[in-house]
């Protein structure tokens, strides 16, 4: 675990909500090209860890470093701009917009258009918008959903919505992707497809992926490493095979069952 330059490093991170400790001195690291799953029963603090990394929740002590620089307690849009992108369990997409428009929102920071040039309608500003649209189409094609560009996201089935959300998060080619329960509501075949996509992104593009997931087969299939949380603490951090055999993990699940 002593990689000299991890992509993401949490060091003794603690988060409290009105006196209750939701995350208790949690440390772990994610490297480039690595798929790291965060599992545990409901209320274990997984989503709070996510929110702390993405800047939606303030941490009380400890540190979060991305690419060697501290990012904890920065505003979410700054963290996003540094290259940490996330998806949401639900409601993250703009349902009444098309897939293309959703991806264009993801490309926000990549369209350096200024207000005055835009309102005056300069050639450059039009070119920038057109370029962004072209990029968005390309990105949709990468995950083979290019044909859905003009469809309202709300009208898409769950699996394709998830793909749109991943494309949107990937739009600015972030080094680190946080996926919050991407398989919720997916049928088994689309789950398998999702697993393939996750592996591809890590292997082909060297993206570090931190994944919260309840579907245990998916976790075991795609992860390089599995971190188990229970009651705000990290109870295991190892390869899927080792974790599968770990007594503490079983207790974490069975103790709450």
């Amino acid at each position, binding site marked *: 675990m002593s990689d000299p330059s991890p992509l993401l490093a949490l060091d003794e991170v603690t988060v409290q909500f009105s006196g209750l400790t939701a995350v208790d001195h949690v440390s772990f690291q994610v490297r480039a090209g690595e798929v790291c799953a965060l599992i545990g029963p409901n209320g274990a603090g997984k989503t709070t860890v996510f*929110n702390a990394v993405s800047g*939606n*929740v303030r941490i009380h002590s400890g540190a979060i470093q991305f690419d060697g620089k501290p990012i904890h307690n920065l505003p979410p849009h700054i963290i996003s701009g540094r290259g940490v992108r996330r998806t949401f369990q639900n*409601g993250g997409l703009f349902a009444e917009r098309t897939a293309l428009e959703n991806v264009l929102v993801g490309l926000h920071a990549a369209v350096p258009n200024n207000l005055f040039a835009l309102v005056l309608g300069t050639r450059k500003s039009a070119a920038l918008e057109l370029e962004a649209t072209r990029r968005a189409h390309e990105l949709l094609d990468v995950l083979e959903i290019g044909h859905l560009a003009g469809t309202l996201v709300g009208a898409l089935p769950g699996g394709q919505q998830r793909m749109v959300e991943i494309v949107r998060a990937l739009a600015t080619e972030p080094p680190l992707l946080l996926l919050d329960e991407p398989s919720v509501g997916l049928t088994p075949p689309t789950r398998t497809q999702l697993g393939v996509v996750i592996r591809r992104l890590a292997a082909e593009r060297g993206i570090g992926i931190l994944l919260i997931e309840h579907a245990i087969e998916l976790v075991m299939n795609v992860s390089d490493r599995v971190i188990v949380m229970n009651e705000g603490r990290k109870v295991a951090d190892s390869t899927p095979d080792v974790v599968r055999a770990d007594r503490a993990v079983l207790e974490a699940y069975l103790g709450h069952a």
Partner: protein
Amino acid sequence: MLLMMAPQLVVSGVTTGMLYALIGLSMTVVYRTTTIVNFGQGDMATAGAYATLVFAVGLGLNFGVAVVLAIGVLFALGYVVQRALLRPIANAPHLALAMMALAVGYALRGGARLEWGNQFMTLPRPYPQGALALGQVVIPTDTLVIVGFVLLLLLILLVVFQATPLGRLTQAVFQSPRGAALVGINLDAFHAVAWGVGAALGAIGGVLLAIIVPLTPDLGEWVLVQGFAAMALGGFGSLGGVVVGGLLLGILEKLLGFYVNSMFIDITGYLITVVVLLVRPQGLFGRRMIVRV
């Protein structure tokens, strides 16, 4: 010498403040059950007063009977407005619901102007106009009647919302409409009744108001704004808060108007609301709004 006026000003402030509170209360009943602020409530209140006018003066009925009939009419109006106009657009953005309520109020105001024009109407006082002298302070019967009514209604609402199964149901519906629907509560009927009750309470407010100030079609706008400000001051959804908010508005506008400058009477409500909300964004007794992550 100047300070001796203060208690008398407070009495007068309590009178108007309690009326603001009553309008605010009637809006809170709707807000607590449906999360909608009825921006047409001011005009519903004046509609209640006009209805009383029709029954009491037009048809010559006994004043008490006229008020009861007016309350019934307004209950029906609130019920029908929710059923026919708001329910079909229940999933629309908040702005559409706000516009619908405003439009209903606008139409009611237009109806009143069509019938009575801009002339000042008054409701006959159904009780003797007198005053109670407490040392230097004179307390008019108007004040006693208004304070009595509002406190009684507040008490009833507090009991209904906080100590009955119905009240707990309301809370459940407010916090999670979907959850409540799953448990099998008939939300539609529930919301419609809440609108009916809100409108009926507004009618009581309108009648009390029209006894002490001249009734015109435009009265509703002023009443709405003061009721809305009282809600914001107290914290949206808080029954006790809206009464405290209304009292604060009523008393401070009289004090500021007398001791600083009479031109402040019109604007006190807004000034206080802005100052309080800048310090306490959730109002005096409201819960902090949580942004969903």
